[in-house]
């Protein structure tokens, strides 16, 4: 047991490696939120009238709402008037190419291992980098353009493809969907937009990298992915933030619209600053992610590796509207120290013969609380719908908690729904088995944890799987026995 404690100590003293800040000249809005701020953001972005109206409408709805109390997390009341809702790196004119981007900015992303210049050309990922609230650079635009794929920052899309934005913005997550979605709809500053035309298979992984840099700011970005009939895209998202004592708010919205036969794979490695080992600071990650499988035979797959954030509140969901459409959710959520996570998914089966699969693996250590909350709803029309859910929890240490809140609502008698969940620690017999075969305790634990999470990690694209495995190793290697 003493060895466990020692290892646990080690683990808890592990520093957050992306905790530095960069000195970039910023311009930001005054603190607080009111209609003027919304107008200010909209004016900054040079937005058309209809979008300002949309934002204002969202703001008015938000002002009437109260923040949700049902998640299994506790945090002090957030003062929404004490947050800066807009912060952007100062740039005189929009850069035409990477050469014109502030070198300090490029260095920031270089440091994160996200090179916006040379190397990525070799790895073949198109990146849209978002610092604080603004997209700073998007790579590989021309190459994607040849195929008719639109991949750019959200504000650019508003200027250049207003018809698409107007049609799909809010079509999956309505502005008044929930408290944080409404807040985002009012003040979102940038994000990524992606459109894959009919029958096009996107040849490379598209990626957004989010970074919060400025202090006291909230980050509110919005991602919109529209996959036209028969198209395919794999999308990656990564995030980090500097180490600060105060909590910072991140309230993003991701919308995916999949038409007939389209396939979208969305992967996240979330590594926001989780706070120090006393639970001070860290990001509040309150995110709304939802996909609409609008067309028949469409498919959306969410994969997430959640290691960061002081508090995670996130339910990537699928609305399976088209017949034979399918949704998948693979998740590994790791909490340590005083982190809290309330995460899961919703699978709403509307169309006939829709299928969904949920695999959720929670790992909690230290004083953390890790909850899975999910809903599988089979509507009356969803004949022959099929769902399989598995949510396992692994506990390390006797001060953490693992909780499961699955809701299963079935209204159709031809549906088959299965749910299973287990909670346990790494078994002594498993360790013993390994020891017997000459594998030392630490490697044995690594082996078992890796095996435990493998089902999810396997779903990640190559480039991300490496990062995720590294992250997992950082947080957990050798922490149990």
């Amino acid at each position, binding site marked *: 047991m003493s060895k466990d404690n020692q290892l646990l100590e080690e683990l808890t003293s592990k520093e957050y490696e992306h905790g530095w800040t960069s000195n970039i000249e910023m311009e930001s809005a005054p603190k607080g939120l009111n209609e003027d701020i919304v107008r200010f953001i909209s004016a900054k972005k040079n937005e058309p009238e209809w979008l300002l109206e949309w934002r204002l409408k969202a703001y008015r709805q938000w002002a009437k709402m109260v923040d949700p109390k049902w998640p299994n997390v506790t945090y002090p009341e957030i003062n929404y008037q004490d947050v800066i809702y807009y912060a952007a790196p100062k740039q005189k004119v929009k850069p035409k190419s990477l050469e014109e981007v502030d070198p300090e900015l490029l260095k920031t992303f270089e440091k994160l291992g996200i090179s916006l210049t040379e190397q990525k050309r070799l790895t073949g990922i198109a990146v849209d980098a978002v610092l604080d609230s603004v997209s700073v650079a998007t790579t590989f635009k021309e190459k994607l353009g040849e195929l008719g794929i639109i991949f750019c920052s959200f504000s650019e899309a508003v200027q250049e493809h207003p018809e698409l934005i107007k049609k799909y913005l809010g079509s999956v997550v309505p502005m008044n969907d929930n408290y944080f979605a409404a807040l985002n709809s009012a003040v979102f500053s940038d994000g990524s937009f992606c459109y894959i035309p009919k029958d096009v298979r996107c040849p490379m992984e598209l990626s957004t990298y989010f970074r919060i840099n400025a202090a006291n700011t909230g980050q509110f970005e919005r991602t919109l992915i529209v996959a036209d009939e028969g198209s395919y895209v794999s999308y990656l998202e990564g995030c980090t933030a500097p180490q600060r004592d105060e909590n910072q708010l991140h309230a993003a919205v991701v919308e995916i619209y999949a038409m007939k036969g389209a396939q979208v794979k969305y992967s996240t490695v979330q590594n926001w600053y989780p706070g120090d080992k006393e639970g001070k600071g860290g990001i509040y990650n309150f995110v709304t992610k939802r996909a609409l499988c609008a067309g028949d035979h469409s498919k959306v797959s969410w994969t997430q590796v959640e290691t960061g954030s002081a508090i995670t509140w996130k339910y990537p969901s699928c609305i399976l509207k088209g017949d034979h459409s399918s949704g998948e959710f693979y998740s590994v959520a790791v909490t340590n120290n005083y982190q809290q996570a309330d995460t899961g998914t919703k699978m709403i089966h509307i169309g006939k013969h829709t299928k969904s699969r949920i695999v959720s693996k929670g790992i909690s250590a230290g004083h953390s609380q890790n909850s899975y909350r999910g809903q599988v709803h089979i509507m009356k029309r969803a004949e022959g719908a099929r769902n399989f859910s598995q949510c396992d929890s692994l506990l390390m240490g006797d001060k953490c908690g693992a*909780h499961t809140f699955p809701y299963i609502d079935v209204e159709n*008698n031809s549906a088959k729904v299965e749910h299973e969940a287990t909670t346990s620690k790494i078994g002594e017999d498993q360790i013993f088995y390994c020891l017997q075969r000459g594998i030392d305790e630490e490697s044995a634990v690594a082996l078992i944890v890796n095996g435990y999470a493998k089902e999810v990690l396997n779903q990640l694209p190559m480039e991300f799987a490496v990062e995720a495995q590294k992250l997992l190793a950082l947080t957990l290697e050798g922490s149990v026995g």
Partner: protein
Amino acid sequence: MSVVTETTPLLSDILADLKSEAGLRTAAHEALEQLGLPGNKSEEYKFTPITRALEKNFQLAKKNPSSEIESIDSFSIPGIDANSIVFVNGVFAEKLSHYEQTDVFIKSISGTENGFGTLADFKTDPFVAWNTAAWSTGISIEVKANTSVSKPIVLHYVHDSAAGEVKSFIRNIIRIGKSSSVTVIEKQDTLGDQAGFSNIVTEGFVEENAELSLFSLQADKGKRFHFGQTTIWQARDSRVNSFTLTLDGKLIRNNFLLVLDGEGIESHMDGLYILQGDTLADNHTVVDHRKPHSNSNELYKGIIDDNAKGVFNGKIYVRPDAQKTNAFQSNRNILLSDKSTVNTKPQLEIWADDVKCSHGCTTGQLDDEAMFYLQARGIDKVTARAMMLYAFAGEVLDKINSEPLKKYFDTLISERLHKNF
């Protein structure tokens, strides 16, 4: 989790009707006023519109009609020699009851019993608050140490609604001394065709090495709306076997809470609901592991036909101290018709690391291949279907430890499933 309040005319009627008395009743009265009745946004009553059902079917101002039932023989359980306690319209029917006090002390409840009101929490559930403020009768069962009670005790909750609607508020307390054992059977029945609402709260204390077998039969063909809260506290090395069979009723809500407050405890919590018509059966169960080295096992199965609705919510808590806990829970459902629905929420909340806990839940229909297999062997469709459903239900039925009771439940289930083999 707080219950979403709704100030409704019904609530003000209830509150006006409750006399302000001293002590617990007043506290419960205040709690009810504060909690309000659950609306459809209330997490705990989301799928069970009990408030709406009460508003629609009952007038609180109406007093219970008096009853002249002569005999309840038609409601008795065949093949069982039991101490039977009968309540008719919320009144203890001394004349209809017959019991011996040889090895068990049975008396009408007074509200001053040791432990009264300590288990059923009226501060969080409005219906428990209502009961605590309004109970009119009930029974206290006490078993001294080292006694094995020979005859089971049957509690008949009878509504005689021929002359008008009935509302009954019953409160029971069961205390089982060290190394003793007793079997308690609850049964609901209605005479007459008017609506009846029963609100029954039972608190049980099972001391060291004692055993309680608790059966609940809910097969009331009348218009029964029911709320029940059963909370059992268990000391070390004690055992509880519970079985709830729900076949009929308009709306049945069972709250069942087991508190495992010692080491070496074994708890079995089983249930079977076979629903048809427009019955709604809602089982909310909680197993609360507070101390290490205890085992709990929960199995609820449902077969739902017609417009019926099944709701299941099973919570397992494992407190930080409760290391080496084994807690298992399973809920399986078969939907037979287009309009039947099931809402289930198996929930685990675990704060201890050295535990083995699992829950599983499935919803589906009869396997086509198995049906084909049986039909290919010359068994007609109706029989094949009955066979499979009977086998499905049999798994829970097999867990009943009393032979005559098992036989009785078996006949009820066979009849319901049209078993003809």
